[in-house]
């Protein structure tokens, strides 16, 4: 087990290096000059050249990459062009906001989808099964930004139960998820984020569970005299490798794809930060954000692989 974990960990290093190269290259390829968006149109060319040299933008690309990588490894993601603040702290603060609501969303979706998917798989063709199918189709087809807006209209505007946007008085730094006055700001973003993964995971749970329930060993379990609950326990444990893989994928999707939801709710996460960085062509900020997101994605996959090998003994020894 530990050998497998170590090997898997070492294997992530080249992946992470690849991630840094792509992050760096993506921004190089993108059109637009960060300096022109920083200065007034009538700035003299020599002043622009000086700025260029100051930010290292006049160096060869490979050199720029290595310089950048060296600084990144030291935890220095550079300085934001837009507001001169260190990128690292800004990205990490935003990332914390994003990862927490993404985790809550995906875990909520995971638990609910297991319950709904299991009921649907056991009572195939029943009322719950049809409702679950309807819910799943709804969840997959509805765009999250539309859902987010509808949630705001219903719960913030009409019912006035929940705040519409932002993180409230505490703000990013002292936000406490265990205090209702803070947490109520997170509820609608969490729900809006959770619906698509919930729908997809419910479908997957139902499909993989009904496949498992048709396998030979289920008949063995029945022939052993086990009751329905025990048999379902066996079956659920057997879909866990697939469910965990799905959980990881959805979490990755949530941290990367939360731009729209975070924009609607003005939730100060990486999605909103990306939005801001792109609009202001803030290259260090953009690179830093993408890098953190990509790195998080790689780490999530690592954790998923390790978790899978814990639940499925066939994985680690092969």
């Amino acid at each position, binding site marked *: 087990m530990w050998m497998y974990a170590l090997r898997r960990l070492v294997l992530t290093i080249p992946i992470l290096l690849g991630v840094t190269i792509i992050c760096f290259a993506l921004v190089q390829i993108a059109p637009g000059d960060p300096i022109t968006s920083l200065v007034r149109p009538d700035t003299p060319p020599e002043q622009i050249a000086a700025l260029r040299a100051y930010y290292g933008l006049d160096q060869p690309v490979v050199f720029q990459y290595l310089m950048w990588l060296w600084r990144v490894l030291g935890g220095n993601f550079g300085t934001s062009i837009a507001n001169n603040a260190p990128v690292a702290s800004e990205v990490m603060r935003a990332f914390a906001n994003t990862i927490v609501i993404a985790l809550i969303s995906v875990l909520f979706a995971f638990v609910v989808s297991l319950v709904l998917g299991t009921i649907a798989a056991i009572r195939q063709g029943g009322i719950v099964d049809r409702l679950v199918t309807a819910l799943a189709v709804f969840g997959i087809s509805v765009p999250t930004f539309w859902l987010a807006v509808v949630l705001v209209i219903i719960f913030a505007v009409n019912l006035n139960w929940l705040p519409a946007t932002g993180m409230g008085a505490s703000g990013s730094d002292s936000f406490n998820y265990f205090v209702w006055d803070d947490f109520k700001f997170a509820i609608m973003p969490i729900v809006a984020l959770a619906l698509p993964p919930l729908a997809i995971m419910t479908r997957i749970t139902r499909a993989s569970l009904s496949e498992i329930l048709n*396998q*030979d*060993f289920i*008949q*063995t*379990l*029945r*022939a*052993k*005299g*086990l*009751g329905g609950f*025990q048999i379902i326990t*066996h079956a659920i*444990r*057997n879909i*866990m490798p697939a469910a965990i893989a799905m959980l990881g994928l959805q979490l990755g999707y949530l941290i990367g794809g939360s731009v729209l939801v975070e924009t609607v709710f003005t939730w100060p996460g990486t999605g909103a930060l990306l939005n801001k960085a792109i609009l202001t062509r803030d290259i260090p900020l953009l690179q830093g954000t993408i890098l953190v997101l990509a790195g998080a994605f790689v780490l999530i996959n690592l954790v998923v692989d390790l978790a899978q090998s814990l*639940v*499925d*003994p*066939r994985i680690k*020894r092969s």
Partner: protein
Amino acid sequence: MNEMRSPDLSLVEAQSETPEAYVKVKDLEVRFVSREATVKAVNGVSFELKKGEVLCVIGESGSGKSVMMRSLLQLHAKKRTRMTGEMRVGEHDIMKVTEKRMSELRGSTISMIFQEPMTALDPLYTIGDQIAETVMRHERVDRDAGWKRALELLELVRVPSPERRLKAYPHELSGGLRQRAMIAVALSCRPSLLLADEPTTALDASVQIQVLVLLRKLQREMGMSMIFVTHDLGVAAQIADKVAVMYAGRIIEYGNARDVLMHPEHPYTRAMLSSTIKDQDRSAPLDTIAGTPPDLRALPDGCSFAPRCKYAGPECLAAMPPEVTDGRNHMARCVRVSAVRGLLAFEPGLAAANVPA
């Protein structure tokens, strides 16, 4: 032929069907109903089995042998299955027991070994867990006691280094060991009826014999009744007391193993026996049974084997041939078979007129 049979005739008669039958199946019919078609999988099967006896059920794929056996455990999906007839195991009326009672019988009084040891065990649970689980379910003991019992059982089924194998997962064991583990699961609560559904078919030839010998030995030691489904006649000859030959969901020949295997009377049994490889000349082509088994969704009237039978005449297709039984309880269901001087005799030229009604 008759000279060979006569000496032990009295002996066999003395132990023929008596009320002490432990397993009693009468007129069992099993139909699988779906929107498209009704599959008549078992069409009136009757047999009796005493304590400690081994019944081998022989037949091609699709002859209903596995379905018949799964019925004894009520393993079919209730919604799609129609079952009629009688099934008794000991004092339990299998047709009438509640699902809760049935699940208590499964794995304790009646247990089953499946054909494919690859897929019949849960891949994510250790062997020890899978054995202990059954013990815990039926004997209401804790996990430690269950594992202790599992260790004894692995020793009983001769698994080498059983302590290590308890903690192994199914994919870490060979096919033979997996099937032994499966047998250990089945025997874990000392069943009085063991159902074995082609337990050696998926195994290597050398392992087959080992597992077979082990099963026979354990069956004798524990005094279990056993129903053993196979399509291997050699296997049947090894372990059977009684043999039932099934075709299209019916028993078409039944009797003591020696009678059925040495002196088959039904044309199907005869054809099947002559299509096995014994000491034939290599250059001679093997006998095979022409044609394919009938479609169970649309069974013809009359003898189901008639379309493939070289002795068949128009009378075979008219109506289902009656069972013909001799004094030794050897039964065949064929219009060309009659009981002559207390023994079954197959007479290819004989017309239906000679058959007792």
